[in-house]
């Protein structure tokens, strides 16, 4: 819109100043149509009808300042950044017009003007690029994807895995869980001393007479040699324990002779 309005005035460009003023007036009407001061400057620059690289920034600054002046007269409210740009351009203009002050620090007027020209050229370049991009053969407009895609069924498969380290650590964990506990699988053939003690405590009360300790072996532990061995050892150890407690006494008539045990009568002592 803004550019169209502007185009009309472009053709009237005979007397530079008049044209610029007219252009500025036309632009003011459409000030809302501009995307900020840089956009406006780019539009203004078109009156110069030259390559953006050779544009007169001084002339552009004049046009812009005229624009802002007119807007003020018309009591149009301009956004702050338009006024910031105006102030900056006024400063730039003075830098460009006055002979360079050797005392003055900072960039020269020419450097500042060159950068503004670069900004304008870059913005224009991006607009042209955008137009070229949008004019390409586009998907869904000029080029088409498969209209009837076939469903790709997704099969999710979970694969479980473990490393040798996991395996060994798992095993190590098990084997060291309670390292003092006898291996459970061995228990079938082991009659523990605790078991023997429990058994003897129950039986000793009834054996006032000497009895061979092999007679105290539990049922089922006398046939199988391994079991008998285990039960004999634990029963013997348990009987020693009872003697130590003072609740039984033992004797053996000879080396390798049968060991006998009987209840120790405390009351008799």
């Amino acid at each position, binding site marked *: 819109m803004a550019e169209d309005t502007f185009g009309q005035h472009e053709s009237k460009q005979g007397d530079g100043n008049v044209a610029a003023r007219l252009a500025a007036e036309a632009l003011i009407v459409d000030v809302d149509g501009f995307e900020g001061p840089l956009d406006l400057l780019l539009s203004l620059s078109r009156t110069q009808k030259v390559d953006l690289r050779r544009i007169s920034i001084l002339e552009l600054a004049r046009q812009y300042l005229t624009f802002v002046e007119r807007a003020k007269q018309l009591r149009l409210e301009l956004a702050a950044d338009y006024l910031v740009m105006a102030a900056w351009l006024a400063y730039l203009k003075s830098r460009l017009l006055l002979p360079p002050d050797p005392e003055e620090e900072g960039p020269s007027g020419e450097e500042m003007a060159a950068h503004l020209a670069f900004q304008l050229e870059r913005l224009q370049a991006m607009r042209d690029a955008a137009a070229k991009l949008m004019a390409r053969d586009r998907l869904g407009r000029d080029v088409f994807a498969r209209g009837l895609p076939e469903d790709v069924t997704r*099969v999710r*498969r979970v694969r479980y895995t473990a490393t040798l380290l996991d395996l060994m650590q798992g095993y190590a964990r098990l084997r060291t869980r309670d390292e003092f506990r006898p291996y459970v699988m061995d228990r079938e053939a082991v009659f523990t001393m605790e078991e023997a003690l429990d058994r003897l405590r129950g039986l000793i009360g009834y054996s006032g007479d000497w009895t061979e300790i092999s007679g105290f072996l539990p049922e089922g532990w006398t046939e199988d040699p391994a079991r008998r061995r285990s039960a004999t050892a634990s029963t013997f150890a348990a009987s020693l324990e009872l003697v130590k407690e003072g609740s039984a006494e033992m004797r053996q008539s000879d080396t390798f002779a049968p060991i006998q045990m009987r209840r120790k009568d405390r009351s008799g002592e």
Partner: protein
Amino acid sequence: MQDESHETGDSLFEAPPMAEQERMVEAILFATAEPVTVAELADRMPHGCDPAEALAHLRRRYEGRGVRLVKVGDAWAMRTAPDLGHLMHRETVETRKLSRAAIETLAIIAYHQPVTRAEIEEIRGVSVSRGTVDQLIEMEWIRFGRRKMTPGRPVTFVVTQAFLDHFGLESARDLPGLAELRSAGLLDNRPPPGSLPQVGDGTDEDDEGGITPEGQSELFED
């Protein structure tokens, strides 16, 4: 767009070459969401075209290809060649670590094979869920071994060749023993020297099984 086809009105008298018509049919069938009838094709192509003939050419062109031209009712569509249907599902494989229960069960089987479920439970101190065993069997890492010659003749479990392949072992005997585990720092959790329980040794398992004359047990003797 539409006016464009209007502009091609002069093609009423000069239809595009058949090769071009074939291209058109190809593009239309490709991009259209539903099967297209010959009438629709004629409608969409420049005047004077012969979609039926173009279809015939196109159909021949796609013979033996990965997609084919097929007739659906009185319309035409492009479809994947039936022998390639298996490519139409994407398999996503998700790798997960085995559960602790499964790893422990597997380790016990590997170190003690052949081993019964009851024995596994005794070593682990907890019952072994059916799911765990099933999972390991499904993974083909364990299988059933021979039954034990004990009351009830329980089944045993052994590890498979796939197990050995996965863990890079020649045989289950290559599994490191407890001493090695310890020297590798895997048994660092405080077993006092000499207190290492001996695995399944000195028991009647060997006799009963009869399968493993020396069993796994001696592997663990330090």
